[in-house]
């Protein structure tokens, strides 16, 4: 296993210690249970919290700071965190405005966050859990648990974080914005190489020298299809068209209803992209792909979007949501309106995303 690790069991803790030492001006780390929190929390602001398995760095811990997340709960590598982490993190950063959980749609994350949502609401801290399920590689939603949460998570955390920080949104309005971002964002990823969970010690799957996986998630899992290796342009086209030509997508989501004081289920539908749409485009490294290759992909993505009548108004190119050292790329397109774009452009200061301050 070719990694910079000590004892694999210590990997997550040691990473957190490194983050705490490096960014102690901005964030703190609690170790029992584990969460990263923002040091100075403005009174009355909604606390925006996310979490998930580790191994996706810089997401989520790298996005804690000003104008994005207020806390992040890291699980073991590729394993959702436990409810007590989210519960304690919520209590820590709650500043009177309630808590918004941003939850990626994986059974583990969903169930653990649901339990934490119940616990916080029972404790009198108004908490809403909003889902991200944006991965067009997963087709069916009727009988399965639907799409995974991937790239849109990063964009949502920035946009919702800005609305909480600078827009002073209250909890319900913030949840509305988060839902709007989710239905307007779509992603798809691919892998050139697998990755190795430190405690497992060997790659999660094998991939021949001439093969690639299309439609991967972010957990080192195999994708939807295994195919012969293709050129950057072909791969970009494959991912971009799957995203742009995806039809309407409907699923039932389960969120905490503050008024009813219990769960409610309702349908949400993603509207397909239309010529004339303005989008934020993210070209994301799965961890081991260098930025040079991402620009080769972006070049083609830009061309395809133009051809399809989409205007890329902002972009984010780099490693933001990853699967350890996996080589590969994920494309995310998010249709924006004035509100989303305004919040995107607001200042942000976190270890991994920073502008305007």
């Amino acid at each position: 296993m070719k990694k910079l690790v000590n004892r694999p069991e210590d990997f997550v803790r040691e990473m957190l210690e490194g983050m705490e030492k490096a960014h102690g001006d901005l964030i703190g780390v609690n170790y029992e249970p584990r969460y990263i929190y923002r040091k100075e929390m403005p009174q009355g602001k909604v606390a925006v919290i996310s979490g998930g398995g580790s191994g996706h760095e810089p997401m989520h811990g790298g996005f804690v700071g000003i104008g994005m997340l207020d806390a992040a709960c890291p699980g073991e590598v590729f394993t959702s965190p436990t409810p007590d982490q989210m519960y304690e993190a919520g209590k820590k950063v709650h500043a009177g405005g309630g808590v918004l959980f941003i939850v990626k749609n994986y059974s583990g994350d969903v169930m653990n966050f649901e339990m934490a949502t119940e616990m916080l609401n029972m404790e009198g801290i108004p908490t809403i859990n909003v889902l991200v399920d944006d991965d067009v590689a997963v087709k069916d939603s009727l009988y399965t648990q639907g799409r995974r949460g991937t790239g849109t998570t990063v964009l949502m955390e920035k946009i919702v974080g800005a609305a909480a920080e600078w827009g002073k949104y209250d909890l319900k309005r913030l949840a509305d914005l988060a839902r709007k971002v989710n239905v307007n964002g779509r992603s798809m990823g691919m892998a050139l190489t697998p990755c190795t969970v430190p405690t497992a010690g060997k790659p999660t799957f094998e991939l021949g020298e001439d093969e690639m996986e299309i439609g991967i998630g972010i957990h080192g899992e195999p994708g939807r299809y295994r195919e012969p290796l293709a050129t950057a342009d072909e791969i970009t086209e494959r991912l971009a068209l799957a995203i742009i030509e995806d039809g309407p997508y409907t699923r039932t989501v389960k969120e905490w209803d503050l008024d009813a004081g219990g769960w409610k289920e309702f349908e949400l539908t993603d509207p397909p992209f239309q010529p004339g749409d303005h989008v934020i485009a993210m070209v994301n490294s799965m961890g081991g792909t260098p930025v040079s290759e991402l620009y080769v992909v972006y070049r083609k993505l830009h061309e395809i979007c133009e051809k399809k009548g989409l205007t890329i108004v902002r972009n984010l190119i780099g490693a933001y949501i990853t699967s350890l050292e996996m080589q590969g790329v994920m494309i995310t397109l998010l249709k924006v309106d004035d509100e989303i774009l305004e919040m995107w452009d607001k200042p942000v200061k976190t270890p991994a995303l920073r502008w305007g301050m």
Partner: protein
Amino acid sequence: MSTITREHIVQWLENVAQVLAENKEYLTELDAAIGDADHGINMDRGFTKVMERLDGVRDKDIGTILRTTGMALLSSVGGAGGPLYGSLFMKAGMAVTGKHELTPEELGKLLRAAVQGVIDRGKAQLGDKTMVDALLPAVEAYEKTLQEGGDLCTALTRMVAAAEKGMKDTIPLVAKKGRASYLGERSAGHQDPGATSSYLILKALKETVCG
């Protein structure tokens, strides 16, 4: 053998911890094929935590012991396994609050509550290629054997056989819940890791009580 004692339950949990430790790599490999290669690691971490907590509740009633087990799993396993097995043991414990011994019928209630806890939490149905595919037929076989007049060890033996069959029957299935569902058709041909750990846990129960 017709009662299950507190010592049985404690011994069962200790055996589960050992069996899961032994099968850590096996379960993780199953999860690597259609999931994210952590199920064995997660379960082993969870039951290591259970072992730590067990000392404090050894002398308590079976309900407390099982609820403590559930809480320990909930706060240490994570992933899908954490809330599911956490719910399983918490609901199992809540079904036998205050008891220091169980009749075969009481064990049946415990098992039913446990499985229902998993279903309520995860919303999986039979055939979705999850742990429910091992758990539900197992509980049904246990209940049916008792109804038909079978004794405890016969019921437990049939329970384990049903769990094993349910586990193996997951192989051809296309997953509808859990991470494996993202693989679509590609999930077929692999045994579900959660169904496998469920089988191991039930098998340890039978072996603890009946040898």
